[in-house]
C-alpha cells in the first residue's frame, strides 16, 4: 500500500524543466490598504533563483509591508505571492517556509545560539542526530562554533545577525527576507557585514530580498534594485541601470545626488534657455514643444574656464562658483547657473535663488563633483565664472505633463 502511494506520488511530480531560470519568488499585483489609506498599489516583481533583490525606499514607502506580505505576516488586499511556483497567498506564515531576518534579529532570548539555530528543526520534530549535525554545519558556516553555548544577549550585533541567518537556513527557506538588516549597526560594521552576507548568500544560493533606505547599501547588495515610492515601484533594474538611467525624477534624486533642470523640446533637440543641447533622446515620447527635465549626476558635470567643449560634452551655460568643499576623495562645487532666457518651462521654482540683482533672478544652483586630479590641475575659486557642460544625462517628463 505504502509503495503504491509512493509510486503515484512520484508520478505526479512533473519533470524538472532545466530551461528558463526558475522564479523563486513572485509578487503579482499586490496592493494593500489600512482602512481607507492605500499603502501598496499593484506591486509586481520576480526574484530569480539565487538572486538578491533590494527594495529601496524612504520610511513609510511601504517596503516593509511588501516584506511582511511575502512572509505571511500581513494579508494583501489584492494580488498573489508565489514561492517556487506554489501560490502561498492564503497560507499562514508558518506554512510558507520563508526565512525572515528581522531588523532586531528577534533571537529567542532564553535559548542559546545552538538552540536558536536548531529551533526550526526541533519544532519540525526532526531526529536529534539530524538536528545536531545541521546545527554544527551552520555554526561552521556562520563561524560561530565557539559561541554555541552563549545567549543572544552575550553576542555582538553582527554575531546576532549571523545566528538569525543560520536559524532560517536550518529549515532550507524558499527565500530569505532581510528587514533593514544593518539599521542598528555602525558604518564600519555595516560595510563588513554587507560583504559577509553577500558571500554567504553566494555560498548557500538562496534567493534574498533586502529592505533598506540606504542607497549605497542597495547598490552594493542587490543584483537588482526596486525603488519604492509611496506604495508603488518607481523602477526596477540592476544597480547600474537605475543609477545611470533613472526612470523617474524620484529615482534620480533618491539614488545619489542629482541635478534637475527644466528644458523644452524644440527643433528636434533640447533647449535649455537659449542653449541647444544636441543629444539623442526618445522623440516618440517627448514631442515638440513639451517641457522636459534634464537629470544629471554631479560627477557628470564638467567645468572649464574656456568655451572649448570636448566631444561627448554638452555645453549648458556659464555659472558662478558659490562654494567649494573638499569631501575626501573628491571636490564638491556648488554653482549658480546663469540661464539665458526662455523661462517657459521653469515650473519647479524651489531651486530658484532669490537675489537682489535683476540679472541673476532666473538662476539655479547645481552641484558638481570633480575628482582629485582634476581639482588639483585646474584650480577654481569662489565667485569665479566657469563654463558648465555635462557628459551624460537623462531626459524625463516634466512633472506638470504627468
Amino acid at each position, binding site marked *: 500500500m505504502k509503495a503504491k502511494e509512493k509510486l503515484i506520488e512520484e508520478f505526479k511530480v512533473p519533470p524538472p524543466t532545466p530551461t528558463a531560470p526558475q522564479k523563486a519568488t513572485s509578487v503579482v499585483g499586490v496592493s494593500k490598504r489600512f482602512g481607507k489609506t492605500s499603502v501598496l498599489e499593484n506591486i509586481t516583481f520576480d526574484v530569480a533563483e539565487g538572486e538578491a533583490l533590494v527594495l529601496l525606499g524612504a520610511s513609510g514607502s511601504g517596503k516593509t509591508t511588501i516584506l511582511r506580505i511575502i512572509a505571511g505576516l500581513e494579508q494583501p488586499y489584492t494580488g498573489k505571492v508565489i514561492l517556487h511556483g506554489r501560490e502561498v497567498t492564503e497560507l499562514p506564515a508558518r506554512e510558507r517556509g520563508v526565512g525572515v531576518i528581522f531588523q532586531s534579529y*528577534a533571537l529567542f*532570548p532564553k535559548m542559546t545560539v545552538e538552540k536558536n539555530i536548531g529551533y526550526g528543526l526541533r519544532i519540525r520534530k526532526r531526529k536529534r542526530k539530524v538536528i545536531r549535525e545541521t546545527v554544527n554545519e551552520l555554526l561552521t558556516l556562520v563561524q560561530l562554533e565557539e559561541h554555541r553555548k552563549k545567549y543572544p544577549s552575550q553576542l555582538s550585533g553582527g554575531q546576532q545577525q549571523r545566528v538569525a541567518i543560520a536559524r532560517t537556513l536550518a529549515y532550507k527557506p524558499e527565500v530569505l527576507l532581510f528587514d533593514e538588516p544593518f539599521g542598528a549597526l555602525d558604518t564600519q560594521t555595516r560595510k563588513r557585514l554587507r560583504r559577509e552576507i553577500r558571500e554567504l548568500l553566494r555560498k548557500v544560493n538562496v534567493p534574498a530580498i533586502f529592505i533598506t533606505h540606504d542607497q549605497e547599501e542597495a547598490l552594493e547588495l542587490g543584483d537588482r534594485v526596486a525603488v519604492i515610492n509611496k506604495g508603488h515601484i518607481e523602477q526596477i533594474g540592476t544597480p547600474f541601470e537605475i543609477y545611470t538611467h533613472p526612470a523617474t525624477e524620484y529615482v534620480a534624486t533618491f539614488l545619489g545626488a542629482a541635478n534637475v533642470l527644466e528644458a523644452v523640446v524644440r527643433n528636434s533637440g533640447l533647449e535649455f534657455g537659449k542653449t541647444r543641447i544636441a543629444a539623442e533622446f526618445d522623440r516618440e515620447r517627448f514631442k515638440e514643444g513639451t517641457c522636459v527635465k534634464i537629470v544629471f549626476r554631479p560627477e557628470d558635470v564638467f567645468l572649464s574656464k574656456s568655451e572649448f567643449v570636448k566631444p561627448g560634452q554638452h555645453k549648458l551655460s556659464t555659472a558662478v562658483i558659490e562654494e567649494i568643499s573638499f569631501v575626501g576623495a573628491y571636490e564638491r562645487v556648488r554653482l549658480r547657473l546663469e540661464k539665458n532666457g526662455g523661462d517657459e518651462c521653469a515650473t519647479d521654482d524651489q531651486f530658484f535663488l532669490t537675489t537682489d540683482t535683476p540679472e541673476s533672478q532666473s538662476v539655479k544652483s547645481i552641484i558638481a563633483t570633480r575628482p582629485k586630479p582634476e581639482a588639483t590641475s585646474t584650480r577654481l575659486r569662489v565667485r569665479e565664472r566657469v563654463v558648465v557642460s555635462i557628459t551624460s544625462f537623462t531626459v524625463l517628463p516634466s512633472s506638470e505633463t504627468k
Partner: protein
Amino acid sequence: MAMSTLVPTMRHVRGFDVVRPLSIGMLVFMMMPLVFLPLASIFIFGTSNGLDKFWAALTAPEAVFALKLSMATSFWATIFNVLFGLFAAYVLSRYNFWGRNALIVTISLPTAIPTAVAGFALLLLWGPYGTLGRFLAPQGIQVMFTAGAIILANVFVTFPLAFGVIKPVFDTMSRSLEEASATIGATRWQTFWHVTLPSLRGAIVSGALLTFARAVGEFGSTILVSGNLAGHTQTAPLYIFAKFNEGQIEAANAIAIVLALFSFLIFSVLFFARDWLDVD
C-alpha cells in the same frame, strides 16, 4: 553670617555626611512600633512558655488541619488564578476589542472590594438561598461552608494579582519574537510554549507567590463562606481568631508564628530571587 556658615558644617563634618546616618536611624525608629515590634511580640509571646509548649500547640490536630487546609485551598486558588491570569493577559494584550478596558477594570476590581463584601457576595450567589445556590440545594449540592467555598473566596480576592504581574511583561514583549517563531514554522501553541512562556517565567513565579501569600492570609471572606468549623472548614487565620476568642493565646500564637515566617519566606524569595527569575 554665623548661621550660614554653621549650617553647612553641621551637614558635613569633615567630609562625613551627617544626614545619612540620621535619616537611616529615623527610618528604623519609625518602623519600630509600626512593624518590627508587633512581629517581634509574636515570637516573644509564642515561645515564652517554652519551646515544648509551643510545639504542642503547633501539633494539635486542629492546628495542623487548619494549616493544611490553608495550604491546600491557597494552592488550588493559585493554580487557577495563574492560569487564568496568563490567559487573560494574553487575550487582553494581544487583541484590541470593544470593551477591552472594561474587562481590565473588572479583573482588577476584586482588590478594591472589602474582603467581607466579597465573601458576602459569594454567599448571596452560592448559598442555600442564593441566586444559583437555591437551584443546587435541592440536588443536594452544597457549595458554601466547604473547602470548595474557601477556594472560591481565595480565587475571588486574589483574582487580579497574577494577571497584574504577567500582563505588563506581555505588553512589553516584542511581537517580532512571536512573528519570527511563526515564520520559522511554529504553530501558535509551539510559539507559546517555546518562546512566549520562557520569557514569562519570572512573572509567573512572582505572580504565583503573591497570590499564594495573599490567599494563605485571607480572613474576611473566608470566615463568611467557610462556616468556620474546626477540623473541617477552619483555615489557619480563622483558627488564630477562634483560639484567641477562646482565650487560648498560646495556640493562636503558634499558628501566627508559622504564618508570619511563611510570608517572610515568600517575600524573601520574591526579593532576592529577582535576578534568578529574570535570568537571560
